[in-house]
């Protein structure tokens, strides 16, 4: 890349490295896979950056996330899902939750969290990706449509289906505890 292109790349694409990693992590469900996917995606992004005319960081987000998204799906189909356990113990989140909270409340939150994690894991990739892009990365419907390559109407209906399933899982977990 020419120096001016390198500069544009740094301004337009690099700010979204965490978003790229987050998406890859949630789609591959494996730390090491996610890192490889992101590195491959970014190499691809460098290669095709000349064809992308955007100059703003906002435009760059959907562009690079689309590459990461496609690479994640390619990766999954090529390598299969290696992971068998659910989400690993996350020290920061767990220690935060422990901060002076009533042990009962903590357990309850943990139970809800686990139930929801399982429900998210159980979502098909189609549904999981829209949830990640909307709820975690905060993309607009239009941006999600650009990343996934579907019309906004499809984004809305997928979000609605995904939320319906997660909502049911959450409700069931709450009811289970009350019994």
């Amino acid at each position: 890349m020419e120096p001016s292109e390198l500069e544009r790349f740094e301004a337009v694409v690099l700010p979204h490295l965490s978003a790229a990693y987050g998406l890859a992590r949630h789609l591959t469900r494996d730390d090491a896979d996610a890192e490889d996917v992101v590195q491959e995606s970014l190499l691809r992004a460098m290669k095709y950056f000349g064809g992308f005319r955007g100059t703003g960081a906002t435009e760059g987000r959907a562009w690079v996330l689309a590459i990461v998204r496609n690479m994640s799906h390619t990766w999954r189909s090529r390598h299969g899902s290696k992971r068998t356990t659910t989400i690993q113990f996350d020290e920061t989140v767990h220690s935060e939750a422990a901060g002076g909270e009533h042990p009962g409340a903590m357990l309850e939150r943990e139970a809800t969290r686990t139930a929801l994690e399982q429900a998210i894991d159980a979502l098909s990739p189609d549904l999981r990706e829209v949830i990640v892009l909307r709820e975690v990365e905060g993309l607009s419907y239009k941006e999600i449509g650009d990343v996934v390559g579907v019309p906004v109407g499809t984004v809305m209906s997928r979000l609605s289906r995904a939320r319906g399933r997660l909502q049911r899982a959450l409700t069931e977990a709450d009811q289970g505890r009350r019994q």
Partner: protein
Amino acid sequence: MSHPHVEMQIDLSLDGELAEDETALLEAHLAECAACRRFREARLALRSAIVTAMPRLEVPDRLRARVRADLRTSGRRMPVWRQAALAATLVLVASASALGGWRVGTAHMASTVLADEVLASHVRSLMPGHLSDVTSTDQHTVKPWFDGRLDFSPPVTDFSGRGYPLLGGRLDYVGGRPVAALVYGRRKHVINVFVWPAEKAKSLSAPTTRQGYRVLHWQTPEYSYWVASDLGLSELTDFVRLLQLGDSAAAAPNP
């Protein structure tokens, strides 16, 4: 009772995707409807639960470092075709007089940069859909096509009879100016001829033959010519002679 349409609107509103007037209508409905209010509460609880279950991840430092390293390499690394071109052990620098003789000389920087650009354009033109803007073997179709697209009218001659058929032409951008690119074929090979008005300032003299691709350059009083192809040198020289003859034939009526 539940209101599926309103539930969709509640999602839109929480996502910040509902228009202002519709939001007002939604609020009015929520004030009246306990079921929809409960739905919204449940959605708010779901949202916060999702964010807890899927915290926003930060990119690990080692991954950031890996990407940075790739980026540095890409800043240094030239495209593959340029590596190939520069890896050439044989860099034949020749210059053709208007009479078609070849002279070996030394390259100087400005024309090396131009040769790079010509080579880049040639390689780019070989990608699907990039070869020609006007596809015609008829010089009387190709030549007028450039009218109004360029501030000069390039000489266009078809050499089908000599085994170098004209395939078409396109606008290209070389050396900081729009130029005419004429596309010729020779069996499966493509020859790109870049033509623009001769610069008076200096007479370029650094055509290069590079591994894989050959880039040849000469200048007539009127035009600057660059030719790029993977064709063998003897055939390309042959072709260049035809072009030079064509050019002088075209120039002949104007003394």
